[in-house]
């Protein structure tokens, strides 16, 4: 039963699957492109919808026992080649590894907000991303120091890089709406006198307790919601940000000045997806993420037996969905390897 499993990516999906496959008795190697495990969750302050401390959750995943798991750091996998019922995994630095099964958990990348040039990210000082705001929340006085004053008005822009065919992403990133509501509440707690506006197209409060959080944002925190997609942001002489949006529920254009504009950047497929797909002979979906052979019945299985998927590499997911997906992928890997052993 000492089959070798390679898990590509040591984010939360990779770690969760590793600890389960490890407990099943497989030899597991985590292959991580960065210098540390954990992935994006390391940069987060609090998680929606219950505002759980992100470090605590990350620790809960990282601290799970990994008896026979080895981790390779700084290995950016570029190809997975099926060869004689095994798989040859190659990294950018020339490192090569053999495994009996491969679980891809390469996750997502944040949309590069600079591509949405009309919103001024990278041009104006006080336009930041939702991910940057999280890191500011982690530091004492982080937001105030970043703006350079106590803000009186902050805007959060939904759907940046998502639901936008102009930049090539037709899909919804799923997590940004509720993240905006959560961050709006956190900002209001920091600055009770500050007006906070969410500029949205639709509010997709799809998860459990998200709608309650939205209601709480309105009722207890007086967060205001304006339905309309920002057309552009500009900077005034004092460095404040002027936004133009249509209040689509009133049918009138609206202009307002903000101390800071937060762009809710969505998820996009990670850069190595294309090269892994072409080398392994598995399919990339129309949205750029990995494609499962049957998204309804076999969400963790690719077209090539022995190569599996888990987490956001196969599309935007929340943390809890990612962990469930990782657990189900571990079972799929086990069932493949034990069937192989019986042959």
């Amino acid at each position, binding site marked *: 039963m000492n089959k070798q499993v390679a898990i590509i990516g040591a984010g939360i999906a990779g770690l969760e699957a590793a600890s389960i496959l490890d407990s099943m008795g497989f030899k597991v190697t985590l292959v991580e492109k960065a210098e540390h495990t954990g992935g994006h969750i390391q940069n987060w302050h609090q998680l929606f919808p219950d505002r759980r401390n992100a470090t605590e959750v990350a620790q809960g995943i990282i601290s799970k026992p990994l008896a026979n798991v080895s981790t390779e750091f700084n290995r950016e996998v570029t190809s997975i080649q099926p060869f004689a019922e095994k798989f040859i995994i190659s990294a950018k630095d020339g490192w090569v590894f053999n495994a009996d099964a491969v679980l891809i958990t390469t996750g997502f990348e944040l949309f590069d907000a600079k591509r949405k040039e009309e919103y001024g990210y990278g041009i104006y000082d006080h336009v930041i991303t939702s991910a940057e705001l999280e890191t500011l929340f982690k530091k004492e006085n982080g937001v105030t120091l970043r703006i350079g004053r106590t803000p009186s008005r902050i805007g959060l822009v939904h759907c940046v890089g998502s639901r936008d065919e102009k930049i090539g992403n037709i899909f919804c990133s799923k997590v940004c709406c509720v993240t905006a509501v959560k961050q709006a509440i956190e900002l209001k707690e920091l600055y009770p006198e500050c007006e906070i506006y969410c500029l949205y197209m639709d509010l997709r409060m799809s998860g459990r307790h998200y709608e309650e959080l939205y209601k709480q944002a309105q009722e207890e925190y007086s967060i*205001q919601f304006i339905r309309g997609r920002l057309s552009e942001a500009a900077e005034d002489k004092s460095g404040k940000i002027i936004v133009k949006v249509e209040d689509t529920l*009133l049918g009138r254009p609206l202009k307002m000045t903000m101390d800071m504009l937060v762009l809710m950047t969505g998820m996009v497929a990670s850069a190595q997806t294309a090269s892994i797909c072409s080398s392994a002979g598995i399919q990339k979906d129309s949205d750029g993420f990995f494609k499962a052979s049957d998204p309804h019945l076999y969400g963790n299985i690719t077209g090539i037996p022995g190569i599996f998927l888990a987490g956001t590499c196969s599309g935007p997911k929340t943390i809890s969905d990612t962990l469930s997906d990782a657990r189900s992928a571990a079972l799929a890997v086990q069932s493949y390897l034990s069937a192989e052993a019986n042959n």
Partner: protein
Amino acid sequence: MNEKKLAFGYTVSKDRQIDFDEASLELYNKVCAAEPSIRLCISCGTCAATCSAAKFSDFSLRKLILQVRRGITKGLQAEVSKCMLCGKCQLACPRGVSTRALIMQINMNLQKTGK
């Protein structure tokens, strides 16, 4: 030449943009203090769908609430007066907004300021 011949029929169009930097949220803040449930409105339009007054006029409570939120007070008094205070909207509202009390508050505050 008389003046009539010089009129080309052009006029200056009024700017329709809501300049939120110039808007006064005084009315909203007062109404909000007296009837906090205004915060709960999600602009779904259930109130306007069931509204008896809306059948015979262009009255819309959904729009009225939004105008108050955006600091638009011009013409509001005439709008509010279209409501018959029947309270059907209150039964229909999915967010539990106290619509009648809200309309009364808007009306009262508008009368005070004479707008």
